[in-house]
């Protein structure tokens, strides 16, 4: 009986979380007359909202921009973050302790605080309206360094020694010994970074005005701000939001095993 109550409560909670998303997904397939209803099924399913959304703004281009920017940022964070984490965890050099402290300190600085100096720098570099402006500020990530460093500290020293005796240099040790062992933390960093880069709105709004360079959430924001909130406008906006959400959900579905494993081992809360 207690178990049944438990499942009912969990079920209600799941519905509370899932219903808005499912409603959004269902509404994108509804005709304007049905948009206001709470039903999760469309009487006459249509792809018209997607067609409208695609026709009114360059969402295809924005999707490609977002994929390119988020993927580049994610790969950069994995490569540079793991290299920095490896050095901080396993190499002896003067100032290592200070660098570790600075890395933690960076996490304490709110992003809003560095927004204006970074913007000024991008303007000075002449990178406004470029991919560089969207990518460069995010290629290093202190949280990624900390997560990976924590994992690399647990790799036995003898494995590194063995690799050195086998003839490997530091970069080869990192990418051929540490990376295969670090699938879970790398997946966690990849998901967190990709989601962060994919959902970023404020920074692209500041540094990109050219519609052809806009990312998906940026274009969606611009798109949502115009055209009013009536049923005819709402459904295409929700369709755009679906395009934004689906890649993240797909990526999470594939990587969730590593993600949960790593969250459990590193104690990070999602």
């Amino acid at each position, binding site marked *: 009986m207690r178990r049944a109550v438990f499942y009912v409560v969990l079920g209600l909670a799941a519905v509370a979380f899932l219903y808005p998303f499912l409603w959004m997904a269902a509404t994108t397939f509804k005709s304007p007359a049905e948009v206001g209803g709470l039903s999760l099924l469309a009487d006459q399913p249509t792809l018209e909202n997607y067609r409208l959304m695609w026709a009114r703004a360059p969402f295809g281009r924005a999707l490609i921009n977002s994929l390119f920017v988020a993927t580049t940022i994610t790969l950069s964070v994995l490569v540079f973050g793991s290299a920095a984490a490896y050095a901080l965890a396993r190499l002896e050099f003067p100032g290592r302790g200070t660098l570790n402290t600075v890395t933690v300190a960076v996490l304490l600085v709110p992003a809003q605080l560095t927004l204006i100096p970074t913007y000024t720098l991008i303007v000075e570099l002449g990178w406004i309206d470029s991919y560089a402006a969207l990518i460069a500020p995010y290629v290093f990530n202190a949280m990624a360094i900390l997560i990976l460093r924590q994992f690399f500290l647990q790799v036995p020293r*003898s494995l590194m020694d063995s*690799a*050195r*005796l086998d003839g490997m240099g530091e970069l080869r040790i990192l990418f051929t010994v540490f990376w295969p062992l670090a699938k879970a933390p790398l997946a966690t960093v990849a998901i967190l970074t990709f989601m962060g880069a994919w959902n970023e709105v404020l920074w692209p709004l500041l540094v990109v005005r050219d519609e052809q360079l806009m990312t998906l959430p940026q274009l969606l924001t611009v798109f949502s701000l115009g055209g009013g909130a009536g049923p005819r406008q709402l459904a295409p906006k929700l369709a755009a939001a679906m395009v934004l959400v689906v890649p993240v959900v797909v990526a999470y579905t594939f990587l969730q095993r590593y993600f949960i494993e790593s969250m459990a081992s590193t104690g990070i809360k999602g």
Partner: protein
Amino acid sequence: MADVSFERVRKDFGTTTVVQDFDLHVADGELVVLVGGSGCGKSTILRMLAGLESVTSGTVRIGEREVTHLPPRERDVAMVFQDYALYPHLTARENISLGLRLRKVPKAEIGRRVRWAAEILELEPFLDRKPKQMSGGQRQRIAMGRAMVREPAVFLFDEPLSNLDAALRGQMRHEIAQMQRRVGTTTLYVTHDQMEAMTLGDRLVVLDDGRILQVGRPIDVYRAPVTLFVAGFIGTPPMNFLDGRLERERDRFVFVSDALRVLVPAKRSLDSAVESREVVTLGVRPEHLALAGVPGPLTLRGQLVLAEVLGATTHLHVEASGRRVVAAVPSGPVPVPGAAVALSVDPRQVHLFAADGSSLLLDSHNL
């Protein structure tokens, strides 16, 4: 293959010196065992030879080449680690061949060497398994195979059997000795295990506090330890020690303590110990004590605390003048615990140490 030499090698970690004045020459094809307690510097010496640890001062040579400051990959050494250090994401075959692939050895040659090592180590059935699918002994053999296929100038073993159970340890010890003799590669082997130290090495190097205490054939070190530390460290059960003084009786020397009087071989070096009346330590190995039928002035009297029957031998633990003494005697009828017993000492087999721990009966250190 090559010989190895350390010349006045020193290693400091910050303000702590862990190895000092280390001089050792290992001949081509020789197997030398470094033995000592935890923190004596034996693993550090191995790591300095491998290039995994820098040398604070001194010179390390492999063959004619000075390798003191060369990176590990340029030293032509292969090492077997205590925890095996196998790459968990690679199969046994890939683990064994990785070093060769990185050195761009032709594929056919890699295949030949892997088959050769697998055959010697009986690894053929496990070559396509990953380390986690193998037992400790199989993993250890993979680690040995990885070292063998490299055909290095020097093999280094850093306590390779410590993680195995007793039975497997015995078997692997035998396999390592066999393999080393078969390939004839110069080998340095670090252990704290008595059995490995005594049975594996052509020579034994006993270390304490970063210094060499004695070098010699295992049996020579066992029979003629040059210091109290070596005497107590080599041998299981360990040597028994009794404190007392030396007295001269005409042309004879007698060790006298509360529990025992023993005639000791006459040596000129004993004169000063007699004159100074310093406390000296008598050492006698358990197998050189025997149950005496009749207690006499030259027997050690005490109370039997415990009798451990090991099969052919029985270890008698005897409490004598507040000290625990162990005698290893042939198994047979033994007194019950609590009984008074007398142990006779073979005076030709005793060791005598001065207050500073040096041997009073050996003329010089066997270094």
